[in-house]
């Protein structure tokens, strides 16, 4: 759907995106990176608002820059949301429908459908200036999806949403992804992205650090020990058993006396061993988890190592 082929974008002496090659398929893809990583630059290259300095960006096989026809297939939901405060949400979405080339009746119909889909039907006749952040996000999404685009780009869409709103928003994005659309979501709130998709593009200082399935990326970093935390009242007994396992690299007692943190080079084998520890050897384990199983840690691994 979207292809980047050695795409770079310079702003004078400042590099925004550096030699990025990637293919973004249908479904939800997360664009991850810290501030200044190049997420917005990448989105603007895809939406045709910037021209790559070198390389190429293709959307449906065509370069989007200066090609408004391709915008018919793109819905863009920028991070900013303080425009057209004097309009009501419905007026704004309808106006965007007219901009997309629809006649009045069709624009109104599509706007009403899109507003309904983002759950704003009961509040869309109030001026945008009175909207909460979450309501603005929804209205922005409504304008991005009203023309049924194949590609929807969302810049930090979860900012300002309450937990229920986030859940609904994520569910909606998931639905759109299942409908065959390519959804690109930029974010630096990694745990939220993790709940949306496992397909990521990880940017750092303009470079594409990693792309693909989160688990595949995780495999790449498996040469680094994987941390696992175990909660138990029998810390010493559990530690003694674990120390005998050949793939355990280190063990450390928690300060609270009720936890252990270990490092292993073979997390899958370790997870397989846990039932035996409990059932066969009668050890009591209250819980376990890994701080390395989220995107935050993946990001840090890739950036720091």
């Amino acid at each position, binding site marked *: *759907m979207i292809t980047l082929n050695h795409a770079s974008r310079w*702003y*004078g002496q*400042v590099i925004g995106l550096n030699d990025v090659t990637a293919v973004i398929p*249908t479904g939800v893809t997360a664009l991850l990176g810290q501030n200044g990583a190049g997420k917005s630059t990448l989105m*603007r290259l895809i*939406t*045709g*608002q*910037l021209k790559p300095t070198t390389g190429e960006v293709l959307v*449906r*096989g*065509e370069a989007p820059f*200066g090609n*408004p*026809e391709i*915008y*018919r*297939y*793109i*819905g*863009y939901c*920028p991070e*900013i949301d*303080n*425009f*057209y405060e*004097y309009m009501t949400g419905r007026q704004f979405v309808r*106006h*965007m429908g*007219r*901009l*997309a*080339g*629809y*006649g009045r*009746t*069709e*624009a109104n*119909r*599509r706007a009403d459908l899109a507003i309904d889909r983002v759950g704003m039907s009961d509040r869309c006749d109030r001026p945008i200036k009175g909207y909460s952040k979450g309501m603005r996000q929804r209205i922005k999404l409504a*304008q991005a999806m009203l*023309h*049924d*685009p*194949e590609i929807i780009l969302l810049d930090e869409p979860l900012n300002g949403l309450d937990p229920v709103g986030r859940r609904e928003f994520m569910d909606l994005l998931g639905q759109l992804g299942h409908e*065959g659309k390519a959804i690109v979501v930029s974010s630096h709130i990694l745990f939220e992205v993790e709940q949306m998709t496992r397909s990521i593009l990880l940017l750092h200082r303009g470079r594409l650090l990693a792309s693909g399935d989160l688990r595949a990326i995780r495999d790449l970093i498996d040469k680094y020990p994987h941390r696992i935390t175990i909660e138990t009242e029998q810390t010493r007994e559990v530690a003694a058993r674990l120390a005998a396992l050949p793939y355990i690299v280190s063990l450390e007692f928690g300060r609270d006396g009720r936890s252990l943190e270990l490092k292993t080079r073979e997390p899958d084998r370790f997870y397989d061993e846990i039932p035996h520890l409990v059932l066969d050897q009668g050890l009591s384990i209250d819980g376990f988890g890994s701080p390395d199983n989220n995107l935050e840690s993946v990001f840090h691994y890739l950036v720091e190592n």
Partner: protein
Amino acid sequence: MSGPLADLSYRHYADGVVNDRAWWAIARNGFRGTVKKKGFWVLTAMSSWWYAVVLVMVYVFEQIAANSIRQQAQDRAVDFISSITWNRVILDGVSFGQIFYLFLALMAGAGAIANDNRTNALLVYLSKPCTKMDYLIGKWLGVFLPLVLAMLLPQVGFFFYGAMSYHDYGFLRQDPWLVLKLPLLAMIMAAFYTSIVLGMSSLFNQGRLAGAISAAIYFITNFFTVLLGGIIAAGASMESSTTVSTPLKLAFYGSVDGIMIATAKGILGEDQGGLPLGGPQNNLSVPALPLWVPLLFSLVVAGLLLFLAHARVRAVEVVK
């Protein structure tokens, strides 16, 4: 399109797409936004004050002509109405309306692009099937159309009232083309004001700042031309001369207000305004320039500002 793609024939994008006129959607939005403001109608009404004054005066003189018991008063009243040059009345109306046209232009256009710059709304606009040119044309028309309406309404109202009521006093006979000249004049003036305000708007991120700078340009240039007008009038009076040198004329008309008055003089074919009993004429006493001079000047200034706007309009801030 190149490369195989999944079957996307179920897409519904094309359903209901009737046109590519994104500029019209933007223009209509701008037009509606402006005409919904009370201030627009208040300023439009205020810009027509001179026409109202003239109509009241003519009405009073008509009543005198019809009802006065003194024949001399009746004759004077009829003479007054008969000797009115209606194009001069309109020239005065245009001249006195300039300040209101400025305020109308600022209301309609100062924030048109500046506010979009501030809020980065261009990101949304330009991610739709809407080119930069669509955006500019739409914004331009969104300011131009309300301005034409505001300029034309008082003139057309005056014209039709005059045509109905004062045809016996030569209203239609004096200039049969007046009905065409009025919309032409309104469109030229509106286009000029629109281009100036929109060009300034594109240079700033705040509508108020763009408006303040536009107003400053208007008032500063106007101050010098009024001053120059006074000097010219005083000089002519001292020398009992009615001729004014071309450089002085050019300087006199070298303001936003001046260019529009010069254009109005050229189109209406009058060198000065005023009523037979001595209306305000100081700033209209300088002879007209050939019409092509103010038109060319307007075109160059408007073109330059629109070129600036075109260069400034972009969806993203580029870090230098």
